[in-house]
Protein backbone atom coordinates (compact mmCIF):
# COMPACT_ATOMS: atom_id res chain seq x y z
CA UNK A 1 0.00 0.00 0.00
CA UNK A 2 1.30 3.37 -0.98
CA UNK A 3 0.42 5.05 2.22
CA UNK A 4 1.78 2.34 4.39
CA UNK A 5 5.17 3.21 3.07
CA UNK A 6 4.70 6.68 4.44
CA UNK A 7 5.51 5.11 7.76
CA UNK A 8 4.28 6.48 11.02
CA UNK A 9 7.60 8.16 11.56
CA UNK A 10 7.51 10.54 14.46
CA UNK A 11 6.64 8.33 17.36
CA UNK A 12 6.14 10.99 19.96
CA UNK A 13 9.56 12.62 19.80
CA UNK A 14 11.82 13.56 22.67
CA UNK A 15 10.12 15.13 25.66
CA UNK A 16 12.17 18.32 25.28
CA UNK A 17 11.10 18.90 21.69
CA UNK A 18 7.50 18.21 22.58
CA UNK A 19 7.63 20.80 25.35
CA UNK A 20 9.25 23.34 23.06
CA UNK A 21 6.66 22.67 20.42
CA UNK A 22 3.89 23.17 22.93
CA UNK A 23 5.34 26.50 24.02
CA UNK A 24 5.70 27.54 20.41
CA UNK A 25 2.10 26.67 19.79
CA UNK A 26 0.90 28.54 22.82
CA UNK A 27 2.56 31.73 21.60
CA UNK A 28 1.77 31.54 17.90
CA UNK A 29 -1.36 29.43 17.80
CA UNK A 30 -1.78 26.15 16.00
CA UNK A 31 -0.72 27.49 12.64
CA UNK A 32 2.12 29.97 12.75
CA UNK A 33 1.90 30.14 8.93
CA UNK A 34 -1.04 32.48 9.45
CA UNK A 35 1.37 35.30 10.16
CA UNK A 36 2.97 34.77 6.79
CA UNK A 37 -0.36 35.26 5.09
CA UNK A 38 -1.12 38.35 7.15
CA UNK A 39 2.31 39.89 6.88
CA UNK A 40 1.78 41.96 3.70
CA UNK A 41 -1.44 43.49 5.01
CA UNK A 42 0.00 44.11 8.44
CA UNK A 43 3.12 45.83 7.13
CA UNK A 44 1.14 48.00 4.74
CA UNK A 45 -1.43 48.93 7.36
CA UNK A 46 1.30 49.73 9.83
CA UNK A 47 3.22 51.93 7.40
CA UNK A 48 0.35 53.61 5.57
CA UNK A 49 -2.50 53.69 8.06
CA UNK A 50 -1.53 53.36 11.71
CA UNK A 51 1.85 55.06 11.75
CA UNK A 52 0.57 58.10 9.78
CA UNK A 53 -2.53 58.35 11.93
CA UNK A 54 -0.41 58.76 15.05
CA UNK A 55 2.07 60.90 13.20
CA UNK A 56 -0.74 63.25 12.20
CA UNK A 57 -1.83 63.59 15.80
CA UNK A 58 1.81 64.18 16.76
CA UNK A 59 2.28 66.81 14.05
CA UNK A 60 -0.81 68.65 15.19
CA UNK A 61 1.02 69.64 18.37
CA UNK A 62 3.91 71.26 16.54
CA UNK A 63 4.75 74.29 14.50
CA UNK A 64 6.23 73.33 11.14
CA UNK A 65 8.97 74.84 9.01
CA UNK A 66 8.79 75.63 5.32
CA UNK A 67 9.35 71.98 4.38
CA UNK A 68 6.51 70.98 6.63
CA UNK A 69 8.74 69.43 9.28
CA UNK A 70 7.86 69.84 12.94
CA UNK A 71 9.91 72.43 14.83
CA UNK A 72 8.49 73.70 18.11
CA UNK A 73 6.07 71.91 20.40
CA UNK A 74 3.12 74.20 20.98
CA UNK A 75 0.61 71.92 22.67
CA UNK A 76 -2.93 72.68 21.67
CA UNK A 77 -2.14 76.02 20.07
CA UNK A 78 -2.88 74.73 16.58
CA UNK A 79 -6.34 73.69 17.72
CA UNK A 80 -6.96 76.97 19.51
CA UNK A 81 -5.98 78.88 16.40
CA UNK A 82 -8.05 76.58 14.23
CA UNK A 83 -11.23 77.12 16.20
CA UNK A 84 -10.70 80.84 16.46
CA UNK A 85 -10.09 81.25 12.74
CA UNK A 86 -13.24 82.45 10.95
CA UNK A 87 -11.97 80.73 7.85
CA UNK A 88 -12.08 77.30 9.49
CA UNK A 89 -15.44 77.97 11.08
CA UNK A 90 -16.78 78.91 7.67
CA UNK A 91 -15.23 75.84 6.13
CA UNK A 92 -16.78 73.58 8.78
CA UNK A 93 -20.13 75.30 8.28
CA UNK A 94 -19.98 74.83 4.51
CA UNK A 95 -19.09 71.18 4.97
CA UNK A 96 -22.10 70.57 7.21
CA UNK A 97 -24.34 72.42 4.79
CA UNK A 98 -22.88 70.40 1.96
CA UNK A 99 -23.63 67.14 3.81
CA UNK A 100 -27.17 68.34 4.35
CA UNK A 101 -27.60 69.25 0.69
CA UNK A 102 -26.18 66.05 -0.73
CA UNK A 103 -26.82 63.07 1.55
CA UNK A 104 -30.63 63.05 1.89
CA UNK A 105 -31.14 64.03 -1.75
CA UNK A 106 -28.79 61.35 -3.04
CA UNK A 107 -30.39 58.64 -0.97
CA UNK A 108 -33.98 59.58 -1.73
CA UNK A 109 -33.38 59.84 -5.47
CA UNK A 110 -31.35 56.63 -5.50
CA UNK A 111 -34.08 54.85 -3.57
CA UNK A 112 -36.73 55.95 -6.05
CA UNK A 113 -34.53 54.79 -8.91
CA UNK A 114 -33.87 51.49 -7.19
CA UNK A 115 -37.56 50.87 -6.54
CA UNK A 116 -38.34 51.54 -10.20
CA UNK A 117 -35.45 49.44 -11.43
CA UNK A 118 -36.46 46.57 -9.18
CA UNK A 119 -39.67 46.03 -11.18
CA UNK A 120 -39.61 42.95 -13.34
CA UNK A 121 -39.72 44.32 -16.88
CA UNK A 122 -38.16 43.36 -20.14
CA UNK A 123 -34.95 45.29 -20.71
CA UNK A 124 -34.72 46.44 -17.10
CA UNK A 125 -31.03 45.56 -17.17
CA UNK A 126 -30.43 48.43 -19.55
CA UNK A 127 -32.04 50.95 -17.22
CA UNK A 128 -30.13 49.54 -14.26
CA UNK A 129 -26.90 50.03 -16.15
CA UNK A 130 -27.76 53.63 -17.01
CA UNK A 131 -28.80 54.40 -13.43
CA UNK A 132 -25.56 53.03 -12.07
CA UNK A 133 -23.41 54.60 -14.76
CA UNK A 134 -22.14 57.54 -12.73
CA UNK A 135 -20.26 55.06 -10.60
CA UNK A 136 -18.03 54.43 -13.57
CA UNK A 137 -17.31 58.10 -14.19
CA UNK A 138 -14.49 59.64 -12.26
CA UNK A 139 -14.69 62.74 -10.13
CA UNK A 140 -12.40 64.51 -12.58
CA UNK A 141 -14.39 63.63 -15.68
CA UNK A 142 -17.75 64.47 -14.22
CA UNK A 143 -16.51 67.70 -12.67
CA UNK A 144 -15.19 68.84 -16.02
CA UNK A 145 -18.49 67.95 -17.68
CA UNK A 146 -20.42 69.87 -15.06
CA UNK A 147 -18.00 72.75 -15.41
CA UNK A 148 -19.15 72.87 -19.00
CA UNK A 149 -22.81 72.55 -18.07
CA UNK A 150 -22.46 75.37 -15.52
CA UNK A 151 -20.59 77.61 -17.96
CA UNK A 152 -22.39 80.97 -17.85
CA UNK A 153 -22.32 81.61 -21.60
CA UNK A 154 -21.91 78.27 -23.38
CA UNK A 155 -23.38 75.96 -20.72
CA UNK A 156 -26.70 74.26 -21.25
CA UNK A 157 -28.22 75.33 -17.92
CA UNK A 158 -28.22 79.01 -18.75
CA UNK A 159 -29.38 78.21 -22.28
CA UNK A 160 -32.42 76.52 -20.85
CA UNK A 161 -33.06 79.43 -18.49
CA UNK A 162 -32.87 81.86 -21.37
CA UNK A 163 -35.42 79.78 -23.26
CA UNK A 164 -37.85 80.65 -20.51
CA UNK A 165 -36.75 84.25 -20.62
CA UNK A 166 -34.90 83.98 -17.32
CA UNK A 167 -31.60 85.64 -16.62
CA UNK A 168 -28.57 83.38 -16.56
CA UNK A 169 -27.05 82.42 -13.24
CA UNK A 170 -23.36 82.52 -12.53
CA UNK A 171 -23.54 79.04 -11.09
CA UNK A 172 -20.00 78.66 -9.83
CA UNK A 173 -18.95 82.26 -9.35
CA UNK A 174 -21.98 83.46 -7.42
CA UNK A 175 -21.43 82.82 -3.68
CA UNK A 176 -25.16 82.15 -3.29
CA UNK A 177 -25.16 79.42 -5.89
CA UNK A 178 -21.68 77.88 -5.81
CA UNK A 179 -22.26 75.41 -2.98
CA UNK A 180 -25.56 74.38 -4.52
CA UNK A 181 -23.89 73.77 -7.87
CA UNK A 182 -21.14 71.69 -6.30
CA UNK A 183 -23.79 69.73 -4.42
CA UNK A 184 -25.71 69.06 -7.61
CA UNK A 185 -22.58 67.64 -9.21
CA UNK A 186 -21.92 65.53 -6.14
CA UNK A 187 -25.45 64.13 -5.98
CA UNK A 188 -25.21 63.10 -9.62
CA UNK A 189 -21.78 61.60 -9.03
CA UNK A 190 -22.88 59.51 -6.03
CA UNK A 191 -26.19 58.34 -7.43
CA UNK A 192 -24.69 55.40 -9.28
CA UNK A 193 -23.06 53.76 -6.30
CA UNK A 194 -25.93 54.44 -3.93
CA UNK A 195 -28.42 53.13 -6.47
CA UNK A 196 -26.42 49.95 -6.99
CA UNK A 197 -26.22 49.18 -3.28
CA UNK A 198 -29.90 49.92 -2.67
CA UNK A 199 -30.96 47.81 -5.64
CA UNK A 200 -28.90 44.96 -4.26
CA UNK A 201 -30.61 45.42 -0.91
CA UNK A 202 -34.04 45.34 -2.55
CA UNK A 203 -33.21 42.19 -4.42
CA UNK A 204 -32.18 40.48 -1.22
CA UNK A 205 -35.68 40.83 0.20
CA UNK A 206 -37.52 37.54 0.15
CA UNK A 207 -40.08 37.41 -2.68
CA UNK A 208 -42.48 35.43 -0.49
CA UNK A 209 -43.07 38.44 1.74
CA UNK A 210 -44.58 40.31 -1.19
CA UNK A 211 -46.49 37.30 -2.42
CA UNK A 212 -48.18 36.82 0.91
CA UNK A 213 -48.84 40.57 1.18
CA UNK A 214 -50.41 40.52 -2.27
CA UNK A 215 -52.64 37.64 -1.25
CA UNK A 216 -53.71 39.62 1.78
CA UNK A 217 -54.55 42.52 -0.53
CA UNK A 218 -51.97 45.05 0.72
CA UNK A 219 -51.45 47.99 -1.65
CA UNK A 220 -48.14 49.14 -3.12
CA UNK A 221 -47.44 51.94 -0.65
CA UNK A 222 -48.54 49.85 2.29
CA UNK A 223 -46.07 47.18 1.20
CA UNK A 224 -43.40 49.82 0.70
CA UNK A 225 -43.87 51.14 4.21
CA UNK A 226 -44.40 47.85 5.97
CA UNK A 227 -42.15 45.46 4.07
CA UNK A 228 -39.67 47.15 1.78
CA UNK A 229 -38.36 49.93 3.99
CA UNK A 230 -38.04 47.87 7.18
CA UNK A 231 -36.34 45.05 5.31
CA UNK A 232 -34.12 47.52 3.50
CA UNK A 233 -33.09 49.28 6.69
CA UNK A 234 -29.69 47.57 7.03
CA UNK A 235 -28.81 48.67 3.50
CA UNK A 236 -30.10 52.18 4.12
CA UNK A 237 -28.09 52.30 7.30
CA UNK A 238 -24.96 51.33 5.42
CA UNK A 239 -25.64 53.76 2.58
CA UNK A 240 -26.28 56.72 4.89
CA UNK A 241 -23.02 56.15 6.73
CA UNK A 242 -21.01 55.74 3.56
CA UNK A 243 -22.60 58.81 1.93
CA UNK A 244 -21.91 61.00 4.92
CA UNK A 245 -18.32 59.92 5.12
CA UNK A 246 -17.97 60.46 1.38
CA UNK A 247 -19.44 63.94 1.68
CA UNK A 248 -16.98 64.84 4.44
CA UNK A 249 -14.15 63.73 2.20
CA UNK A 250 -15.15 65.70 -0.91
CA UNK A 251 -12.16 67.08 -2.73
CA UNK A 252 -12.03 66.59 -6.50
CA UNK A 253 -15.20 68.50 -7.36
CA UNK A 254 -13.99 71.51 -5.38
CA UNK A 255 -10.55 71.47 -6.92
CA UNK A 256 -11.92 71.42 -10.44
CA UNK A 257 -15.10 73.47 -10.13
CA UNK A 258 -14.44 76.30 -7.69
CA UNK A 259 -11.06 75.92 -5.97
CA UNK A 260 -12.84 76.72 -2.77
CA UNK A 261 -14.25 80.00 -4.00
CA UNK A 262 -16.01 82.26 -4.41
CA UNK A 263 -15.14 83.95 -1.14
CA UNK A 264 -14.40 80.59 0.50
CA UNK A 265 -18.05 79.61 0.15
CA UNK A 266 -17.15 76.14 -1.14
CA UNK A 267 -13.93 75.68 0.80
CA UNK A 268 -14.90 72.31 2.25
CA UNK A 269 -12.75 70.86 4.98
CA UNK A 270 -10.59 68.48 2.96
CA UNK A 271 -9.90 71.18 0.41
CA UNK A 272 -8.89 73.59 3.15
CA UNK A 273 -6.60 70.90 4.59
CA UNK A 274 -5.09 70.40 1.18
CA UNK A 275 -4.41 74.12 0.85
CA UNK A 276 -2.90 74.34 4.33
CA UNK A 277 -0.71 71.32 3.88
CA UNK A 278 0.32 71.31 0.26
CA UNK A 279 0.01 74.92 -0.86
CA UNK A 280 1.16 76.65 2.33
CA UNK A 281 3.14 73.66 3.69
CA UNK A 282 1.85 74.27 7.18
CA UNK A 283 1.69 70.62 8.23
CA UNK A 284 1.10 71.41 11.89
CA UNK A 285 -2.00 73.43 11.35
CA UNK A 286 -3.24 71.09 8.59
CA UNK A 287 -2.76 68.10 10.89
CA UNK A 288 -4.89 69.65 13.57
CA UNK A 289 -7.68 70.09 11.00
CA UNK A 290 -7.19 66.46 9.93
CA UNK A 291 -7.58 65.32 13.53
CA UNK A 292 -10.80 67.31 13.81
CA UNK A 293 -12.08 65.73 10.58
CA UNK A 294 -11.07 62.30 11.81
CA UNK A 295 -13.06 62.69 15.00
CA UNK A 296 -16.04 64.06 13.09
CA UNK A 297 -16.10 60.97 10.91
CA UNK A 298 -15.61 58.73 13.91
CA UNK A 299 -18.52 60.51 15.60
CA UNK A 300 -20.76 60.04 12.56
CA UNK A 301 -19.97 56.34 12.44
CA UNK A 302 -20.50 55.97 16.17
CA UNK A 303 -23.80 57.86 16.10
CA UNK A 304 -24.97 55.85 13.13
CA UNK A 305 -24.20 52.67 14.99
CA UNK A 306 -25.90 53.84 18.15
CA UNK A 307 -29.07 55.27 16.66
CA UNK A 308 -29.14 53.47 13.36
CA UNK A 309 -28.81 50.03 14.86
CA UNK A 310 -31.92 50.36 16.98
CA UNK A 311 -34.20 51.14 14.09
CA UNK A 312 -32.54 48.75 11.74
CA UNK A 313 -34.31 45.54 11.03
CA UNK A 314 -31.81 42.77 10.55
CA UNK A 315 -32.96 39.64 8.84
Amino acid sequence: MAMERAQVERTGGLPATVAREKLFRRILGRQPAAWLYLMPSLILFAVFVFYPLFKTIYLSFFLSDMKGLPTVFIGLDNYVRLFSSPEFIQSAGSTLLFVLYTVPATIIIALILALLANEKLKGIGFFRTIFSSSMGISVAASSVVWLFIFNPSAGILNRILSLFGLRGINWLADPNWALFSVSLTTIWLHLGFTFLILLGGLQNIDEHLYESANIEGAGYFYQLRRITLPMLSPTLFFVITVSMIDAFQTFGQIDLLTKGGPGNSTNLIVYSIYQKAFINFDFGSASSAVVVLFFCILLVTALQFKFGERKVHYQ
Partner: protein
Amino acid sequence: MRIVKQTSLYVVLTALSLVLFFPMLYAFSASFMSAQEVLLGHFLPSTLHFENYLQAFQDVPLFRFLINSIFISLVVTFGVLAVSSMAAYAFVFLDFKGRKLLFVLFISTMMIPWEASMIPNFVTVQQLGWINRYAGLTIPFFASAFGTFLLRQYFKTIPKEMQEAAQIAGIGHFRFFMNVVLPVSKTSLVTLGIYTFLTTWNAYLWPLLTTTDELVRPLQIGLRQLQSQETVNEWGVVMAAVMVVAVPTLIVLFIGQKHLQKGLTDGALK
Protein backbone atom coordinates in the same frame (compact mmCIF):
# COMPACT_ATOMS: atom_id res chain seq x y z
CA MET B 1 -54.50 47.80 -16.68
CA ARG B 2 -51.26 45.84 -16.79
CA ILE B 3 -50.26 47.34 -20.09
CA VAL B 4 -50.99 50.88 -18.92
CA LYS B 5 -48.87 50.28 -15.84
CA GLN B 6 -46.03 48.81 -17.85
CA THR B 7 -46.04 51.54 -20.45
CA SER B 8 -46.06 54.29 -17.87
CA LEU B 9 -43.20 52.54 -16.09
CA TYR B 10 -41.23 52.47 -19.31
CA VAL B 11 -41.94 56.15 -19.91
CA VAL B 12 -40.79 57.07 -16.41
CA LEU B 13 -37.69 54.90 -16.67
CA THR B 14 -36.75 56.31 -20.05
CA ALA B 15 -37.28 59.89 -18.92
CA LEU B 16 -35.15 59.34 -15.83
CA SER B 17 -32.45 57.64 -17.88
CA LEU B 18 -32.30 60.60 -20.21
CA VAL B 19 -32.04 63.07 -17.35
CA LEU B 20 -29.38 61.06 -15.55
CA PHE B 21 -27.34 60.27 -18.58
CA PHE B 22 -27.80 63.72 -20.08
CA PRO B 23 -24.47 65.14 -18.85
CA MET B 24 -22.59 62.33 -20.53
CA LEU B 25 -24.62 62.55 -23.74
CA TYR B 26 -24.10 66.28 -23.80
CA ALA B 27 -20.38 65.87 -23.25
CA PHE B 28 -20.21 63.19 -25.93
CA SER B 29 -22.00 65.44 -28.40
CA ALA B 30 -19.86 68.45 -27.50
CA SER B 31 -16.70 66.42 -28.02
CA PHE B 32 -17.47 66.54 -31.75
CA MET B 33 -18.32 70.24 -31.91
CA SER B 34 -16.20 73.08 -33.13
CA ALA B 35 -15.48 75.89 -30.70
CA GLN B 36 -17.93 78.02 -32.64
CA GLU B 37 -20.78 75.58 -32.21
CA VAL B 38 -20.10 75.22 -28.51
CA LEU B 39 -20.27 78.95 -28.03
CA LEU B 40 -23.55 79.13 -29.93
CA GLY B 41 -24.93 76.57 -27.52
CA HIS B 42 -25.79 73.90 -30.06
CA PHE B 43 -26.80 70.56 -28.70
CA LEU B 44 -25.75 68.47 -31.69
CA PRO B 45 -22.68 69.02 -33.87
CA SER B 46 -23.37 69.88 -37.50
CA THR B 47 -20.35 67.87 -38.64
CA LEU B 48 -18.30 65.49 -36.57
CA HIS B 49 -15.11 67.25 -35.57
CA PHE B 50 -12.88 64.27 -34.82
CA GLU B 51 -9.94 66.65 -34.72
CA ASN B 52 -10.96 67.49 -31.15
CA TYR B 53 -9.66 64.08 -30.14
CA LEU B 54 -6.45 64.55 -32.06
CA GLN B 55 -6.07 67.95 -30.47
CA ALA B 56 -6.57 66.52 -26.99
CA PHE B 57 -3.86 63.92 -27.56
CA GLN B 58 -1.53 66.64 -28.83
CA ASP B 59 -2.13 69.22 -26.13
CA VAL B 60 -1.10 66.87 -23.35
CA PRO B 61 0.45 63.41 -23.52
CA LEU B 62 -3.00 61.89 -23.12
CA PHE B 63 -1.85 58.55 -24.49
CA ARG B 64 0.89 58.37 -21.90
CA PHE B 65 -1.67 59.19 -19.19
CA LEU B 66 -4.00 56.51 -20.51
CA ILE B 67 -1.25 53.89 -20.35
CA ASN B 68 -0.31 55.10 -16.86
CA SER B 69 -3.88 54.84 -15.65
CA ILE B 70 -4.32 51.36 -17.08
CA PHE B 71 -1.02 50.19 -15.62
CA ILE B 72 -1.59 51.71 -12.19
CA SER B 73 -5.16 50.40 -11.96
CA LEU B 74 -4.16 46.90 -12.99
CA VAL B 75 -1.23 46.77 -10.58
CA VAL B 76 -3.35 47.99 -7.68
CA THR B 77 -6.14 45.57 -8.60
CA PHE B 78 -3.84 42.54 -8.59
CA GLY B 79 -1.99 43.83 -5.56
CA VAL B 80 -5.21 44.17 -3.60
CA LEU B 81 -6.44 40.76 -4.75
CA ALA B 82 -3.20 39.08 -3.67
CA VAL B 83 -2.77 40.85 -0.34
CA SER B 84 -6.44 40.72 0.72
CA SER B 85 -7.01 37.13 -0.31
CA MET B 86 -3.99 36.05 1.71
CA ALA B 87 -5.20 37.91 4.77
CA ALA B 88 -8.74 36.61 4.32
CA TYR B 89 -7.38 33.07 4.02
CA ALA B 90 -5.57 33.43 7.32
CA PHE B 91 -8.71 34.75 9.00
CA VAL B 92 -10.88 31.91 7.75
CA PHE B 93 -8.72 28.83 7.40
CA LEU B 94 -5.88 29.29 9.83
CA ASP B 95 -6.09 29.17 13.56
CA PHE B 96 -3.81 31.58 15.35
CA LYS B 97 -3.63 33.49 18.55
CA GLY B 98 -5.42 36.84 18.53
CA ARG B 99 -7.41 36.17 15.38
CA LYS B 100 -10.51 37.99 16.56
CA LEU B 101 -8.57 40.96 17.86
CA LEU B 102 -6.61 41.29 14.68
CA PHE B 103 -9.77 41.12 12.62
CA VAL B 104 -11.27 43.98 14.61
CA LEU B 105 -8.07 45.90 13.98
CA PHE B 106 -8.44 45.29 10.25
CA ILE B 107 -12.06 46.39 10.24
CA SER B 108 -11.24 49.50 12.26
CA THR B 109 -8.97 50.72 9.45
CA MET B 110 -12.14 51.13 7.38
CA MET B 111 -13.17 53.87 9.81
CA ILE B 112 -9.97 55.83 9.31
CA PRO B 113 -10.41 58.20 6.39
CA TRP B 114 -7.59 58.31 3.91
CA GLU B 115 -7.12 62.01 4.61
CA ALA B 116 -6.18 61.27 8.20
CA SER B 117 -2.96 59.68 7.04
CA MET B 118 -2.43 61.76 3.93
CA ILE B 119 0.19 64.20 5.23
CA PRO B 120 2.60 61.69 6.83
CA ASN B 121 2.06 59.35 3.89
CA PHE B 122 3.14 62.09 1.56
CA VAL B 123 6.29 62.53 3.63
CA THR B 124 6.90 58.77 3.71
CA VAL B 125 6.53 58.43 -0.03
CA GLN B 126 8.77 61.45 -0.51
CA GLN B 127 11.45 59.92 1.70
CA LEU B 128 11.20 56.61 -0.13
CA GLY B 129 11.81 58.53 -3.33
CA TRP B 130 8.46 57.40 -4.70
CA ILE B 131 7.23 60.81 -5.85
CA ASN B 132 6.66 60.51 -9.59
CA ARG B 133 7.11 56.76 -9.37
CA TYR B 134 4.53 54.06 -10.00
CA ALA B 135 5.42 52.60 -6.60
CA GLY B 136 4.07 55.65 -4.81
CA LEU B 137 0.80 55.42 -6.70
CA THR B 138 0.27 51.71 -6.16
CA ILE B 139 1.93 50.09 -3.16
CA PRO B 140 0.24 52.19 -0.43
CA PHE B 141 -3.12 50.88 -1.69
CA PHE B 142 -2.36 47.16 -1.71
CA ALA B 143 -3.74 46.46 1.74
CA SER B 144 -7.51 46.77 1.79
CA ALA B 145 -9.64 46.17 4.84
CA PHE B 146 -12.73 46.23 2.67
CA GLY B 147 -11.24 43.65 0.31
CA THR B 148 -10.18 41.41 3.17
CA PHE B 149 -13.64 41.67 4.67
CA LEU B 150 -15.41 40.96 1.38
CA LEU B 151 -13.29 37.91 0.64
CA ARG B 152 -13.50 36.65 4.19
CA GLN B 153 -17.29 36.67 3.91
CA TYR B 154 -17.04 34.51 0.83
CA PHE B 155 -14.32 32.20 2.09
CA LYS B 156 -16.47 31.49 5.12
CA THR B 157 -19.07 29.88 2.86
CA ILE B 158 -16.54 27.29 1.71
CA PRO B 159 -17.27 24.12 3.70
CA LYS B 160 -14.69 23.44 6.38
CA GLU B 161 -14.71 19.80 5.27
CA MET B 162 -13.07 20.81 2.05
CA GLN B 163 -10.06 22.00 3.97
CA GLU B 164 -10.10 18.89 6.12
CA ALA B 165 -10.26 16.66 3.09
CA ALA B 166 -7.24 18.49 1.73
CA GLN B 167 -5.44 18.13 5.04
CA ILE B 168 -5.99 14.39 5.07
CA ALA B 169 -4.89 14.08 1.47
CA GLY B 170 -1.68 15.87 2.43
CA ILE B 171 -2.38 19.04 0.50
CA GLY B 172 -0.56 21.93 2.11
CA HIS B 173 -2.02 25.33 2.90
CA PHE B 174 -0.47 27.15 0.01
CA ARG B 175 -1.61 24.56 -2.48
CA PHE B 176 -5.09 24.52 -1.00
CA PHE B 177 -5.20 28.31 -1.14
CA MET B 178 -4.03 28.52 -4.75
CA ASN B 179 -5.76 25.46 -6.22
CA VAL B 180 -9.00 25.36 -4.31
CA VAL B 181 -9.89 28.54 -2.43
CA LEU B 182 -8.99 31.04 -5.13
CA PRO B 183 -10.63 29.22 -8.07
CA VAL B 184 -13.76 28.54 -6.01
CA SER B 185 -14.01 32.22 -5.06
CA LYS B 186 -13.64 33.47 -8.59
CA THR B 187 -16.82 35.55 -8.50
CA SER B 188 -15.96 37.52 -5.40
CA LEU B 189 -12.43 38.04 -6.68
CA VAL B 190 -13.90 39.49 -9.86
CA THR B 191 -16.20 41.76 -7.83
CA LEU B 192 -13.36 43.04 -5.71
CA GLY B 193 -11.22 43.38 -8.82
CA ILE B 194 -13.77 45.53 -10.63
CA TYR B 195 -14.36 47.66 -7.57
CA THR B 196 -10.65 48.20 -7.01
CA PHE B 197 -10.03 48.95 -10.67
CA LEU B 198 -12.77 51.58 -10.71
CA THR B 199 -11.70 53.29 -7.51
CA THR B 200 -8.05 53.34 -8.53
CA TRP B 201 -8.82 54.62 -11.99
CA ASN B 202 -10.93 57.39 -10.49
CA ALA B 203 -8.54 58.37 -7.68
CA TYR B 204 -7.78 62.06 -7.66
CA LEU B 205 -6.23 63.59 -4.56
CA TRP B 206 -3.31 61.20 -4.04
CA PRO B 207 -2.10 61.22 -7.67
CA LEU B 208 -2.45 65.01 -7.60
CA LEU B 209 -0.06 65.13 -4.65
CA THR B 210 2.45 62.58 -5.84
CA THR B 211 2.78 63.25 -9.58
CA THR B 212 4.48 66.51 -10.37
CA ASP B 213 5.57 65.54 -13.86
CA GLU B 214 3.90 63.86 -16.79
CA LEU B 215 5.83 60.60 -16.75
CA VAL B 216 3.63 58.58 -14.39
CA ARG B 217 0.65 60.95 -14.16
CA PRO B 218 -2.71 59.18 -14.53
CA LEU B 219 -5.58 60.36 -16.71
CA GLN B 220 -7.54 62.15 -14.00
CA ILE B 221 -4.73 64.54 -13.25
CA GLY B 222 -4.01 64.77 -16.95
CA LEU B 223 -7.55 65.95 -17.49
CA ARG B 224 -7.08 68.59 -14.83
CA GLN B 225 -3.91 69.69 -16.57
CA LEU B 226 -5.63 69.87 -19.94
CA GLN B 227 -8.60 71.71 -18.53
CA SER B 228 -6.40 74.36 -16.95
CA GLN B 229 -4.31 74.70 -20.12
CA GLU B 230 -7.14 75.02 -22.57
CA THR B 231 -8.63 78.37 -23.34
CA VAL B 232 -12.27 78.77 -22.40
CA ASN B 233 -13.39 78.29 -25.95
CA GLU B 234 -11.95 74.85 -26.60
CA TRP B 235 -14.67 72.89 -24.83
CA GLY B 236 -14.82 70.37 -27.65
CA VAL B 237 -11.24 69.31 -27.00
CA VAL B 238 -11.78 69.08 -23.25
CA MET B 239 -14.91 66.99 -23.74
CA ALA B 240 -13.00 64.69 -26.06
CA ALA B 241 -10.49 64.13 -23.26
CA VAL B 242 -13.36 63.51 -20.83
CA MET B 243 -14.59 60.75 -23.12
CA VAL B 244 -11.13 59.16 -23.14
CA VAL B 245 -11.15 59.24 -19.34
CA ALA B 246 -14.69 58.02 -18.82
CA VAL B 247 -15.24 55.39 -21.50
CA PRO B 248 -12.85 52.69 -20.20
CA THR B 249 -14.41 52.64 -16.74
CA LEU B 250 -17.90 52.84 -18.16
CA ILE B 251 -17.14 49.72 -20.18
CA VAL B 252 -15.76 47.97 -17.10
CA LEU B 253 -18.86 49.00 -15.19
CA PHE B 254 -21.27 47.87 -17.91
CA ILE B 255 -19.64 44.46 -18.04
CA GLY B 256 -19.33 44.08 -14.32
CA GLN B 257 -22.48 45.78 -13.10
CA LYS B 258 -24.26 42.61 -12.01
CA HIS B 259 -21.21 41.22 -10.27
CA LEU B 260 -20.51 44.45 -8.54
CA GLN B 261 -24.01 44.91 -7.28
CA LYS B 262 -24.24 41.44 -5.80
CA GLY B 263 -20.73 41.45 -4.43
CA LEU B 264 -20.95 44.86 -2.83
CA THR B 265 -24.31 44.29 -1.17
CA ASP B 266 -23.15 40.94 0.17
CA GLY B 267 -19.96 42.49 1.44
CA ALA B 268 -21.72 45.44 2.95
CA LEU B 269 -24.42 43.58 4.75
CA LYS B 270 -23.33 40.21 5.96
